[in-house]
């Protein structure tokens, strides 16, 4: 599905609210790969995922897809990624099917079969016509994850996807990730529980935290 174009980040340095979050951070993610971000709270897992999505710009360093920096063609990069954040984007007055077909439509997938397959992939086809206001947190999270399957995109960026999921749903997610990677897709996810990602790499962000007394680097680097 995708060429073996590497998704790379070179000596990334990021500031959030004037504070140095991480520096000199590198990563490489080939097709079919999976990168799990671990590290204490505040070590910048979400920040790195938002950098990869292009919501944030690093103060130093570049992120590139197949050698082309994201800033060069942000629109193309957005077309090739799915981002699952902490919020599930579920409208109270729309049914699950309407929500999913909207998000699939935004990515150019209009046929109902793809939407139904995605609903089935996360076991929410039984409640497809239930309006959003009646969904539990777990169901809302599964609906949000169903977007990954509804419209194909090579790069998945998942920020603590397993929050609110029961054991069975986590298995569904692991299956979806495995299938996606088998098709040549790639996944970056941050998690606090151990998610089975056979052959995946782990990036511990604590290793890139700013050294203690170097804290003022933020002031001069700004």
């Amino acid at each position, binding site marked *: 599905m995708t060429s073996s174009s590497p998704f790379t980040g070179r000596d990334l340095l990021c500031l959030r609210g004037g504070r140095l979050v991480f520096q000199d951070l590198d990563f490489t993610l080939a097709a079919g790969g999976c990168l799990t971000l671990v590290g204490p709270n505040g070590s910048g897992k979400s920040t790195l995922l938002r950098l990869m999505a292009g919501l944030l710009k690093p103060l130093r360093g570049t992120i590139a897809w197949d050698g082309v920096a994201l800033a060069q063609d942000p629109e193309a990069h957005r077309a090739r990624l799915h981002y699952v954040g902490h919020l599930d984007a579920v409208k109270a007055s729309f049914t699950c099917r309407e929500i999913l077909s909207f998000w699939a439509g935004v990515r150019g997938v209009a046929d109902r079969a793809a939407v139904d397959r995605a609903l089935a992939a996360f076991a929410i086809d039984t409640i497809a016509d239930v309006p959003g206001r009646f969904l539990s947190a777990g169901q809302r999270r599964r609906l949000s994850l169903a977007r990954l399957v509804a419209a194909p995109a090579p790069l998945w960026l998942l920020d603590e996807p397993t929050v609110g999921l029961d054991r069975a749903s986590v298995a569904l997610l692991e299956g979806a990730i495995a299938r996606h990677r088998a098709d040549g897709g790639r996944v970056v996810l941050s998690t606090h529980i151990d998610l089975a990602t056979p052959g995946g790499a782990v990036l511990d962000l604590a290793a890139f935290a700013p050294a203690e*007394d170097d804290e*003022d680097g933020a002031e*001069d680097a700004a």
Partner: protein
Amino acid sequence: MDGFLSMGGYAAYVWSSYGAAALVLVGLLVLSLTGLRRVERTLATLEAAKPRRKREPKVGPVPTASPATETAP
């Protein structure tokens, strides 16, 4: 002298204009100075309270008294 004070009968308007000017200009100056003092005082306490300073303590932006010291990049 009273001719000067009466401002040709428009004393109220002229003097209140200059009074307002003094109020605004001096007021902004005083507010800015007190603001600066307050922030630099909290900064000094924070700088002092920073534990584990390996390098020589870096002086905050500028205590007004001493000349500015170059902060090592």
